[in-house]
């Protein structure tokens, strides 16, 4: 297998190298790729959409249809993790810790249960005492991460960033909560239902804006037809439409990142994990 792999790799590599012989030089301003479509985008996009970040303008407007499916791909990944890993059977082994003494009790019998309260708390199998420094720092950090994520989503029109990046950052704030405390703390704050609904709602916002444009008499995703609905300057309507879809993307991505992490780390049981 190693030899076969090596031969295949060498053949493919040579073939690709042959293809590069005819490519325009790296950084050549006159290569066809930099002339045909790109010039139109660079010169006209601001006038047509009022969005200075060209990447956002092309991503969410000219090629907004691609981005809609990209969001659908993300949703599919979350759905896949749910479908493949989710395990609704509760675990047979349960661990409880007696808070005043620190003794950990291990229950193998399914029928026996302890009431979780001030005296006992349910803990993971590999329980380690929580670290005060980490907990405190993360508790302070998480709101700032979330604010930053919102900034990235909202400011995607003017600076690098957008729905996807903001959504990932927002999702990672959930993951940070799960890592610094434990998975149960996260699941108490954001339930599975919440994440499931948000992942679908995010994409629905995107598709919905497109569909509304269609109902208003334009083509699918044509934001300019939304102008009668919103009390803004008609020239700015495309930028606003883009903001709308970016928010949708952000919501979907946030939820899906959390779903993937939770399912992988707890092997679908949603009880304990990293």
């Amino acid at each position, binding site marked *: 297998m190693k030899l076969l792999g090596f031969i295949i790799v060498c053949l493919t590599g040579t073939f690709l190298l042959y293809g590069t012989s005819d490519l325009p030089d790296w*950084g050549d301003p006159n290569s066809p790729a930099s002339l045909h479509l790109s010039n139109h985008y660079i010169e006209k996009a601001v006038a047509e959409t009022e969005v200075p*970040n060209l*990447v*956002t303008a092309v991503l969410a407007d000219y090629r907004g249809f691609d981005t809609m499916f990209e969001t659908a791909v993300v949703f599919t990944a979350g759905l896949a993790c749910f479908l493949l890993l989710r395990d609704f059977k509760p675990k047979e082994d349960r661990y409880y810790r007696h808070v005043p003494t620190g003794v950990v009790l291990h229950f193998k019998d399914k029928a026996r249960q302890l009431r979780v309260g001030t005296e006992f708390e349910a803990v993971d199998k590999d329980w380690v005492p929580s670290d005060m420094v980490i907990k405190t720092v993360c508790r302070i950090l998480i709101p700032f991460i979330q604010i930053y994520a919102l900034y990235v989503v909202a400011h995607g029109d003017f600076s*690098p*960033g*957008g729905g*996807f*990046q903001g959504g*990932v*950052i927002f*999702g*990672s704030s959930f*993951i940070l909560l799960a*890592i610094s405390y434990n998975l149960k703390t996260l699941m108490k704050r954001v339930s599975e239902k919440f994440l499931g609904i948000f992942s679908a709602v995010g994409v629905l916002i995107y598709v919905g804006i497109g569909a509304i444009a269609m109902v208003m008499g334009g083509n699918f995703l044509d934001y300019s037809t939304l102008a009668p609905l919103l009390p803004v300057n008609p020239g700015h309507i495309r930028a606003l439409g883009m903001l709308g879809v970016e928010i949708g993307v952000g919501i979907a991505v946030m939820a899906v*990142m959390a779903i*993937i*992490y939770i399912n*992988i*780390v*707890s*092997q679908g049981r949603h009880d304990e*994990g*990293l």
Partner: protein
Amino acid sequence: MLWPIDLIVLTFVIVTAVAAISVRDLLGTAILFSVYSFMMCLLWAVMGAVDVAFTEASVGAGVSTVFFVAAVFSTSRRTKD
């Protein structure tokens, strides 16, 4: 002149890529992979693709690594090659 920086970072990228697939510990692979992604993100930032670099920094070096560590946590660190 941009190309010397570009070349140096590219070399780093290739070194980390080889290291990531040859180290005999999956947790090590995860960390090297994260370094690889970050180098890649640097390279793209050098080439002016700021949005792509931002995405790669948050996805490739950030969330992917967390998924990776989570998967290693719920499977095993052991690898034969």
